[in-house]
């Protein structure tokens, strides 16, 4: 079978061909939107035209069958127009109001989960994990599945004070948005890498390896044409392993999951914020990580119960103070919580004001 003529540097197809007529007509001229349910909203244009969106959950790691099935549905109800969101949900774009109910009916029948719009938990931004990455200290897809099973109602219906953005990253490279999420999980190591001295000279570039270490723990070992790692300085971040495959760091007995909380990226009310550590370590307990799930649920529900309307998790915590957050959630405060990295000093409390 002969191959078609390859082209290069053509870039993606022009977006315009994927915009439905009502979008093309009202492009840039939307007036307002209304949330109709946990998974349906309508955007109304200056012209009066309406565009309905039905959002459904996707596991993100999907088969071509899944893609074909949503394509079928889109053809049936949306003239074939659909999109994905920046959080990996599928959005059916309905121009014909009368198709809205039948679409939802069929989706429900086929087992799709409608939701994620409004002040809810949306899909979890996540990464490859054990499905595809050499660097993963935990699995991402599995964690997402067990969390969303537990938080299911917060996706479909139950309202929260504001949107809650969850993220999972399988290592501290943090592909995704863990560092600025309301609640996020990140796979961590707790022991220094092993140095495969025989391999280092062949597969690693020594200067980059040394430069990769945030704490300066790596130094050359000229005798072995390899490197040394100071155990006292290494904090097991795993970055050297990204750069030098001869420094494996994975350790099934000690790897696990950390939970960080209170980040955001939107500028509404308060500035974008970094997430902060609340669980330094929970064990990797696949397939359903019960410790991690119940920790997240506890945080989410303490927030749901106590935050004011429109407060994001981080805004709530900052209003009440972190000392109160630890008290209310019952999470133990440990030495790991106290920063000792670059900006440690800026996190120390420089005021006599705090709560008991």
């Amino acid at each position: 079978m002969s191959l078609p003529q390859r082209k290069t540097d053509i870039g993606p197809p022009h977006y315009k061909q994927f915009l439905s007529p009502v979008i093309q007509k009202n492009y840039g001229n939307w007036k307002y939107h209304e949330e109709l349910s946990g998974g349906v909203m309508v955007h109304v244009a200056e012209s009066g035209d309406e565009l309905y969106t039905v959002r459904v959950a996707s596991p993100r790691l999907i088969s071509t069958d899944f893609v074909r099935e949503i394509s079928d549905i889109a053809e049936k109800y949306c003239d074939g127009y659909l999109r994905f969101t920046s959080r990996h949900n599928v959005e059916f774009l309905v121009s014909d109001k009368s198709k809205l109910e039948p679409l939802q009916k069929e989706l429900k029948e086929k087992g799709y989960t409608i939701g994620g719009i409004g002040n809810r938990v949306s899909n979890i931004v996540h990464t490859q994990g054990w499905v595809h990455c050499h660097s993963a200290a935990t699995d991402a897809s599995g964690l997402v599945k067990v969390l969303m099973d537990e938080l299911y109602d917060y996706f479909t219906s139950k309202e929260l004070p504001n949107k809650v953005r969850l993220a999972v990253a399988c290592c501290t490279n943090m592909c995704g948005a863990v560092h600025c999420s309301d609640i996020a999980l990140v796979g961590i190591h707790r022991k220094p890498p092993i140095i495969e001295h025989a391999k280092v000279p062949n597969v690693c570039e020594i200067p980059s390896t040394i430069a990769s270490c945030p704490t300066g723990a790596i130094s050359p070992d000229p005798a072995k044409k390899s490197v040394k790692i100071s155990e006292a300085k290494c904090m097991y971040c795993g970055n050297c392993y990204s750069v030098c495959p001869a420094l494996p760091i994975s350790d099934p007995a000690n790897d696990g999951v950390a939970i960080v909380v209170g980040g955001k990226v939107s500028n509404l009310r308060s500035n974008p914020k970094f997430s902060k550590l609340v669980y330094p370590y929970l064990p990797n307990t696949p397939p359903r990580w019960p410790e991690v799930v119940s920790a997240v649920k506890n945080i989410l529900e303490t927030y749901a119960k106590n935050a004011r309307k429109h407060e994001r998790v981080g805004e709530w915590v900052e209003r009440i103070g972190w000392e109160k957050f630890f008290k209310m959630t019952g999470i133990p405060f440990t030495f790991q919580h106290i920063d000792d990295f670059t900006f440690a000093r800026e996190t120390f409390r420089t005021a006599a004001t705090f709560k008991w």
Partner: protein
Amino acid sequence: MSKKHETPLLDELEKGPWPSFVKELKKAAAKKESANDLLGALEQCYKDNRTHWKHGGIVGVRGYGAGVIGRYSDIPEQFPGVAHFHTVRINQTSGFFYTSKALREVCDIWDKYGSGLTNFHGSTGDMILLGTNTESLEPLFAEYSSHGWDLGGSGSAMRTPSCCVGPGRCEWSNIDTLDITYDLTQEFQDEMHRPAFPYKFKIKTSGCAVDCIASIARADLSIIGTWKGDIKIDQAEVQSYAKKGMDINAEIVNMCPTKCMSYDGKELKIDNENCNRCMHCIAKMTKALRPSGERGATLLVGSKAPFVVGALLSWVIVPFMKLEPPYTELKEFIRKMWEWWDEHGKNRERIGELIERKGMRDFLEAVGLDPLPQMVKEPRRDPFYFWKPEELEK
């Protein structure tokens, strides 16, 4: 394909109401040997509590240095179908808009050459085709490119730009996010496909400060739409929000970060001069409030994940730039940044890290910008700082 591996642990992840990726794996496994072995290999990871992938050599398509991530199993004997199991990144469409036809095309080609498993989308934005072998890369690329699809970025290159839905469906977009993303992607094809930078460079564009593409947290260049003008108030709509039960003082006025709003039960007022355009009031009362005046974007630079110096959020560099095709000023700014970064950046040093290392002045002078208070949250504290000879008495 018939079932090849027992997966008691993964089977647990078919339970529960949330859509199951394991079901998806099984659907693909029913057709593809490699997907079948992926299932087995993943079960093994669940058993061993560790990953079974390893670093690989560089793989790719002819003439490109980017777009494919090489990946190999560390137990290929057990799972030969994933001995090689590379990822192909296909550049997604602006705003993730598709037609069923386009999606089918993508699937058909993928089923021909790969595992039939994908991520819609990867967190940078690409369509991720998850798992193929080295031999399939060239034919796969020929088919995709002949159908109008190209690869995304990877390695020390510009990465696939992405954006929020913007003017496609959002009433708040101050800029044409879809067009900017498309245009920049086309403009910088070479920079995207042939890695020549010190490290990766990401561009993300949001139509407003709500930032639905999370650009401020994960883009070396974050483009965020904004406006210069007053927020127009429709007082009748304000009343209708109040009637529907909104506590306007508690929910809007008191939550305004600059405290520039007031409401006496009748009229909502905004002291626009003191508004910092955070979007809170507009987002929560979309029918009543609208920005007006000149539109453009704030350009912020430098955000990234934690390595090496700790996570960064992007920094305001250009408070306001008008963004209209052909986006000449924007492109010039980007090229100037890259030039300086290319010259001074170390291997694996992101631009934000370089700015921090060399100092903001160096960077601003290189790209030809004057210092502005909008660039900082606050001026420096400790009173020692550099002077250039021309600033001194002889």
